[in-house]
């Protein structure tokens, strides 16, 4: 077998050698840290995934040694292969930062921001993404798109309102089960994940859609509202399962198993798909052999509660507020840039509206 040649690629001034056929994103993941673009739709274990969310856009400043021309458009790093001598800019590119901020904003305009009641909070990639790349206020002032909640069978609930249409759950059903019964209906911003006729997702491995979903759109009904993930303690456990590897994370509170998920790697990706029985039925500690605590990945609030690497935030509250003193902490207008902080919100009747921030209109004479 011919050996795959190694390609040199420079990402944000760091050079690394990777086998030909590696994507820019995977090369950046080998470097790790801030250089790695965020990925909301790509999933290394799912064929054809990626390319959709556009959070991983990077600038290619030089295509290759052979053809050093820059690429005119930003490219999706998850779907673009490296070439020998390629020079990529991620955090060192202003264009990328600008486009990424745009993508984050787009992903959030119709998102319900219902983190306080969402089971995904604390392990949500959209939360992480907005924290790292989002703005502090919103410029969207229309009512958001809403969908009804759906039960997809006894175990899985779909909150379409939270979905970012990454298509991962569709690929899971395509690639792990023999017959997909859900998919994307309609198109554009009215597209939705659905079974068309209300149907249960019924397959031994369909529970994995919950693990791949980057947001709280697909959640585990057996864990619904039971606890916040950061109050639970993940441990590695295994069992002898006839259907899957039986290697899981148990999410415990005391001796109680609150939730079972697949094990995830540092990029939040499932290591081994697990079956529904392990996920939903084995909630007794006696079903499992505990192997030890989970080393929680870099961007999780879960690690803040329990284990190594405890970090204090480096900004204090007064620093964040930057001299402003809002009436209420909920008062997002006073920290947002679009709306002028000088406007006295207390003087406005009802919710503030963009016109309240315009220069005063000519008075209409009321004589």
């Amino acid at each position, binding site marked *: 077998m011919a050996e795959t040649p190694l390609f040199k690629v420079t990402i944000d001034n760091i050079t690394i050698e990777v086998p030909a056929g590696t994507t820019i994103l995977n090369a950046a993941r080998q470097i790790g840290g801030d250089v790695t673009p965020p990925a909301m739709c790509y999933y290394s274990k799912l064929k054809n995934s990626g390319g959709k969310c*556009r959070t991983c*856009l990077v600038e290619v400043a030089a295509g290759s040694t052979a053809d050093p021309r820059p690429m005119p458009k930003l490219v999706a790093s998850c779907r673009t292969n490296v070439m020998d001598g390629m020079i990529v800019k991620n955090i060192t590119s202003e264009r990328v930062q600008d486009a990424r901020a745009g993508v984050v904003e787009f992903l959030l305009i*119709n998102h319900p921001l219902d983190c306080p009641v969402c089971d995904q909070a604390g392990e949500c990639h959209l939360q992480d993404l907005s924290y790292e790349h989002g703005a502090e206020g919103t410029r969207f002032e229309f009512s958001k798109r809403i969908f009804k909640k759906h039960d997809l069978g006894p175990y899985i609930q779909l909150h379409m309102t939270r979905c970012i249409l990454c298509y991962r759950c569709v690929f899971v059903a395509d690639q792990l089960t023999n017959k997909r019964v859900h998919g994307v209906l309609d*198109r554009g*911003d009215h597209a939705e994940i659905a079974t068309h006729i209300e149907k249960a997702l019924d397959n031994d491995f369909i529970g994995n859609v919950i693990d791949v979903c980057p947001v709280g759109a697909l959640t585990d009904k057996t864990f619904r509202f039971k606890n916040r993930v950061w109050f639970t303690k993940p441990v590695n456990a295994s069992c002898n399962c006839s259907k899957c590897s039986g290697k899981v994370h148990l999410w415990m509170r005391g001796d109680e198993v609150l939730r079972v998920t697949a094990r995830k790697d540092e990029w939040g990706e499932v290591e081994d798909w697990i079956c529904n029985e392990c996920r939903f039925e084995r909630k007794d500690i006696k079903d499992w052999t505990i192997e030890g605590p989970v080393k929680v990945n870099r961007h999780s609030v879960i690690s803040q509660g329990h284990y190594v690497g405890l970090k204090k935030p480096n900004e204090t509250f007064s620093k964040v507020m930057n001299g402003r003193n809002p009436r209420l902490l909920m008062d997002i207008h006073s920290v947002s840039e679009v709306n002028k902080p000088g406007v006295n919100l207390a003087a406005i009747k009802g919710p503030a509206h963009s016109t309240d921030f315009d220069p005063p209109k000519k008075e209409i004479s009321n004589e």
Partner: protein
Amino acid sequence: MGVKLLLDKAHIEGIRYYDTYRKNGGYTSVEKALKMSPEAIVEEVKKSGLRGRGGAGFPTGMKWSFIAKPEGVPRHLVCNADESEPGTFKDRYLMEFLPHLLIEGLIVSSYALGSNATYIYIRGEYAWIPDILEQAIAEAKANGWLGKNILNSGFDCEIYVQRGAGAYICGEETALIESLEGKRGNPRIKPPFPAVKGVWERPTVVNNVETLAAVVPIMNMGGEEYAKIGVGRSTGTKLISACGNINKPGVYEIDMTISVEEFIYSEEYCGGIANGKRLKACIPGGSSVPVLPANLLLKTAKGETRYMNYESLSDGGFATGSMMGSGGFIVYDEDQCIVKNTYTLARFYRHESCGQCSPCREGTGWMEKILKKIDTGKGSHSDIDLLWDIQRKIEGNTICPLGDAAAWPVAAAIRHFRDEFEWHVNNPEECLRRNYGLAHYADERAVIA
């Protein structure tokens, strides 16, 4: 009268049917082509300088020469008849009145590309046209132009008509291919390009109806002769579907040497602005291309006459120019409101976005909402800047060009008609009552009676 290569026989009664079409010189290009080698035909098309008529204007001969030819893998030609761009209706005219011209072009092109199974993907809304095409295919087959061993050349070819289900996005070539395969019409992420992996992972060429019809005159007269018509890299003739506030809307075949002014005002073409009004603005190449105010439409920024061809229409880039696009020529008179029209277009793109990528899915909806707000007199000045910022963040950051196509009209409207947006903000009541904008963009010329 300009040269006519495609529509020259459109007026002949019964030209839709095989016998009449054949009697008037139809299918001679197939006879000629099958005696040549496929490579020689590709060469002829290259020489002709023909550029894709679907919107992007990519040189057709070059596209054909890119098709991969792996051993033992079938190749396919797909005719893009999805024509859904607002303002564009030239392919419909061709298929409806000259179906055999398209079939003839398809046979020659299939031979050149080695496609034994060729598809016409037609938009679902053209409900009556598949019957016309299927009848033409049946007639061609009955007369030995399709099927096995055509004219004893050893070349087999079948043409199949596939209807779409009414989605603009299925005109994008990779979405079209997905849809043709029976899947959801989402554009694919490129690479791989269709020339390498298209329909069923086989090398595929997708071409517009008009492009493939133009292969017939190219074969008949030779590539070099074809290239002599027109100017510069705009060779041959182009179909323009003209609509809006003009006296004679319709499909016109032009050679690309006439000026925009002549096209709008001459009796041969649009016949001037309707109802004695003045010209205000025009979208010269289908709804996706930038709108131009009258002054920049008739003359370039340098003050030169603007012509109806690829180079001249795009002279000045997007700052002061536009694009030939698909040839959908939409004319606005002085009473038309740019804000309202931009809102209408934004609604279209929002509705037609496939929803795969976040900037297009969310951005198109957001732009529509803001435009509606401004149009109904509820907008504010910051909305205009916000709109600009949103389109900027969509453009270039999406999977397929629909994102750009949604961003460009908004960008051009703000670029050239910003004061009209501001007028809407400043005159909320009047803009609801009157709902048209500022007339001072109108061409100053006296009305042609």
